[in-house]
């Protein structure tokens, strides 16, 4: 649609045209999701690792809503992942074994706690925000670690039972059902996130990230958007946690460790923020590298992860996906 046409149309339909245009699916997007379906049929593919990558990708995508689109860093995002994981675990252990409703309840619990957290921190910024989210993460970890009669402590939650999905597909030891279930949940939540960020609400979120003072002048609820973004991001992180529990029938305190909060930040930064896909690409790169490095250099592989982080922050601060995008645009301009 050309600019001349745009300005000729009445404002309402012009805005509608804008949102329609940004929501249009790019061919590469179809390729991405079809590729995830197709990869299942590749012989000898490590389907369990791929499932893990999707779970990390969903987790990083939830952080992207908060950090990428609203510009709010959280050093404690694993708290919500772990809350979702433990909720799904408790449900499975104490009789609520149906996975889909278990997933929804886990998302709800994580989302409500996220809403409360967002309300708490909506005015805080900078170091203080990092410290508050970090402290909350450590508190949740400490509780899960110490309340052994409830959580099993370091041994984790034993005896989690999950029924077959839709009563038809049993979770098998090869991770086949787990992969399809994970892919379906990730795709659905991706659609939700995509619809959100391409909506007027998503645009307001970007506005509040770029210039909060001006957004206040326009009458947009800048602080409330932090709370809402926190709640949505927490619910999606909870879904990723629930996926991990349901596909492995096990939860333990590392699901909400500070290490995981740091890892998910690293994944998102490597992949690129405010892209949604950056989260999945970052998860792919990070987990493959971790898998490979821990095999090549079992003792020192963290050195290479650290070096990767330093190099990415120093030279590709925007992440892999935006760097590729810029390169492609430049290439196209030259032709």
């Amino acid at each position, binding site marked *: 649609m050309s600019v001349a046409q745009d300005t000729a149309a009445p404002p309402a339909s012009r805005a509608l045209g804008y949102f329609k245009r940004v929501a249009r699916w790019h061919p590469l997007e179809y390729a991405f999701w079809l590729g995830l379906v197709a990869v299942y049929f590749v012989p000898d593919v490590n389907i369990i690792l791929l499932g893990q990558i999707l779970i990390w990708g969903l987790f990083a995508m939830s952080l992207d809503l908060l950090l990428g689109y609203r510009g709010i860093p959280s050093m404690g995002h694993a708290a919500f992942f772990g809350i979702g994981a433990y909720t799904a675990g408790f449900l499975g252990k104490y009789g609520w074994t149906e996975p889909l409703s278990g997933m929804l309840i886990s998302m709800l619990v994580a989302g409500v706690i996220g809403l409360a957290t967002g309300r708490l921190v909506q005015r805080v*910024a900078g170091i203080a925000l*990092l410290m508050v989210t970090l402290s909350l993460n450590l508190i949740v970890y400490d509780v899960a*670690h110490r309340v052994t009669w409830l959580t099993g402590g370091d041994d984790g939650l034993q005896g989690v039972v999950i029924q077959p999905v839709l009563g038809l597909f049993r979770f098998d030891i090869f991770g086949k059902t787990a992969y399809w279930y994970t892919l379906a949940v990730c795709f659905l939540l991706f659609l939700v996130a995509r619809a959100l960020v391409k909506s007027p609400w998503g645009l307001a979120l970007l506005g509040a990230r770029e210039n909060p003072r001006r957004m206040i002048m326009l009458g947009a609820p800048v602080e409330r958007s932090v709370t809402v973004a926190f709640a949505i991001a927490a619910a999606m992180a909870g879904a990723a946690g629930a996926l991990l529990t349901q596909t492995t029938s096990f939860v333990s305190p590392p699901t909400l460790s500070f290490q995981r909060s740091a890892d998910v930040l690293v994944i998102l930064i490597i992949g690129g923020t405010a892209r949604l896909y950056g989260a999945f690409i970052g998860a792919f790169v990070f987990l493959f590298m971790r898998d490979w490095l821990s095999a090549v250099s079992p003792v020192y592989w963290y050195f290479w992860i650290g070096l990767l982080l330093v190099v990415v922050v120093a030279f590709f601060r925007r992440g892999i996906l935006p760097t590729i995008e810029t390169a492609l645009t430049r290439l196209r301009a030259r032709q």
Partner: protein
Amino acid sequence: MASAATVLFNGIAYGVLLFIMSVGLSVTMGMMNFVNLAQASLSMLGGYVVIAFTQSYGVPFLLSLPIAFVLVGLFTIVIERLVFRYFYGTDDLTQVLLTIGLVFMSIAVATYFWGPGYRGVDVPAWLTGQTDVFGLTLERYRIFLVIVGGLLSIVLIFGLERTRFGAMVRACVDNSRVANGCGLNTDLIFAITFAVGGGLAGLGGALSANLLGIDPNFPLRYLVYVLIIVSVGGMGTIGGTLIAGLALGIADVGGKYYFPEIGSFVIYAITALVMLWSPRGLLGRHQ
């Protein structure tokens, strides 16, 4: 059975250690707004320096402490010139990620050179064992720590409040652009402050080798405590850092002794509350 006074004293000794590890970060963060999570890695390096000098070269423990201070300080200058100075203007998150990457690297490097296990250090006989002070039986090493910490606090506060260089540092903390505009060589002041802060972190690690032991995961274990002390005390304030360090030390030791089931929960909760109530810390300067 330890009395309440002994627990309190042990907490103070631990708090002094945490203060020495954190104070450099507090000043540099106040000055450059640079979030350096690798501060705890510098402490680990200080600890290893003392272990290496006392055990391999037979240097006396007391002499190895200033060596650790100087070597880690010099090392900090190298890192500052090579890496940190390119990241002064960037946002908090970039700095956090950069320095977490450096922490990961430091852990692997420490494992490579010194092995994965705990290493302790031998202190002179007159620092071991216990002694009676005012009817309390106290460990001599902890008494030594409290004395060192007290002297260091006096030197630091005097240096910052009463010397010409201290005035320059305070000017940079308050507003480095204006300080630069007034003709101060802010780059040089940054570098020296960074070096002294790093050296102090190294000294803190050197002093903790006997009490806490040094292993490659030392930075990850103490990184959070250092951050809590700096942010709760208020960046750029030595008094606030001292108060927060002592409070954390007493709360940690006392909490573990009297309420082991509650654990670190209270410390984190207080941190969150302080940050929500006063984002610039207890004694932080409000802008």
